[in-house]
């Protein structure tokens, strides 16, 4: 593995930015994100020997960071997050927002903060586009189907928050099935 310090520095160089961004999206705060990133690397350094496949280092680091985060917030945060059950099912049809979507960064983070971590992490990792569903499932210790289902529901939640349906959009669009097959209220 070469020298310890060389190994550590290589890990930092390759992954610190992605790790920090993940931490930021998880915590919603730059200071907390930096602390978490520091701690994750610190933890990783003490367990470097457990990293069997170097090309899995990124997923390994993400998992370490997430575990640290969960440990920190286990008590303080759970009560104010939107619990898993409250995030609705996938609506049968989304209203199409006309034109390009403008995502307000503050509202995006707020919407993420509102979600239970069990929804937030799959969403963040989905949009990072660096991990497959299988990777995400492994990181979270969940079946891949559960991850996909949470993703679909989490995305619907995000969409409702960030691009709420324009009233009457369905009608103007001339959708063939405005009621939606099995359409349901997201609650």
């Amino acid at each position, binding site marked *: 593995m*070469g*020298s*310890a*310090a*060389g190994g*550590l*520095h290589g890990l*930092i*160089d390759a992954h*610190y*930015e992605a790790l*920090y*961004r993940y931490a*930021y*999206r998880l915590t919603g705060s*730059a200071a907390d994100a*930096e602390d978490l*990133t*520091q701690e994750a*690397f*610190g933890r990783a*350094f*003490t367990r470097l020997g457990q990293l069997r496949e170097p090309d899995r280092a990124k997923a390994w680091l993400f998992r370490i960071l997430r575990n640290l985060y969960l440990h920190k917030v286990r008590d303080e945060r759970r009560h104010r997050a939107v619990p898993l059950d409250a995030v609705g099912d*996938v*609506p*049968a*049809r*989304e209203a*199409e*927002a006309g034109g*390009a*979507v*403008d*995502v307000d*960064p503050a509202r*995006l983070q707020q919407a993420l903060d509102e979600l239970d971590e069990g929804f937030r992490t799959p*969403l*963040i990792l*989905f*949009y*990072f*586009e660096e991990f*497959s*569903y299988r990777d995400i499932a492994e990181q979270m210790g969940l079946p891949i189907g559960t991850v*996909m289902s949470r*993703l*679909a529901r989490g*995305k*619907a939640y*995000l*969409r409702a928050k*960030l*691009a709420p349906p324009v009233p009457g959009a369905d009608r103007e*669009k001339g*959708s*063939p*099935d405005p009621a*939606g*097959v*099995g359409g349901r209220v997201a609650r």
Partner: protein
Amino acid sequence: MQCRDAQFYLRLRRPAGDELGADVSADLDRHLAGCPGCAADARAAGGFDAAVAAAVRAVPVPAGLHDRLRTAASAHAGAVIRRRAYRVTALAASLLLAVGLGFGVFSVTRPQIDSYAVVGPAEGLVSDPDAVLKTWLAERKLPPQLPAPFDPDLLVMAGSERVQGVDVPVAVFRHPDDPKYFARLYAFRADGTLNLDGLRNDFASNTAVTVIPTDARQFRGVRYVVVTRVRNPREDPLKPYLRTAGTARR
């Protein structure tokens, strides 16, 4: 495929790579081709995803983070290695390429060993030493100058250590010619807690403890103490670690 399934899979289809499997993807495509409603949704979902993906990734990374992480890593490597050296001094010394680090005397148990330890190749432990030093000085709220022209290229780590019950900033420099030797520069803040005699007693007999005289105002009363392992009793203990050989330290 029904509209409801199509809606579900639409949200899970990703721009990079098909993760739904060939069968599902083909079914979905067939459905979209024949269902204008879902096809419109697919376009909308694609636009939404692209916008959210860009926003989610748009997190500015703090400028100094990289250096802070690397500094912490070096300090960590130093600490780990000092602990390890304490346990397996002889073995480690014989097996690994040495860069001097750590007398170990400041740990709680005050181990009496005088082992140096091993942190990998002599070069490249600190890739941007000037930046690391600058960050270290700023973060420890120390004056922006070092009290003597230490050679940044010799920097092994910059961090802090528990000394006489207080966290004291410390920077470690290796000897340019002999990686078993090194200088530890401690910056004691002006709060009167430094017990120099106690400090001298803490060290093994073959170490030198040097106080660098400084202008109290310029250096805000910080007292700089350098601990070196004596290599040549006739040599100025600090000189090898300073940038301009021949320039006497003040």
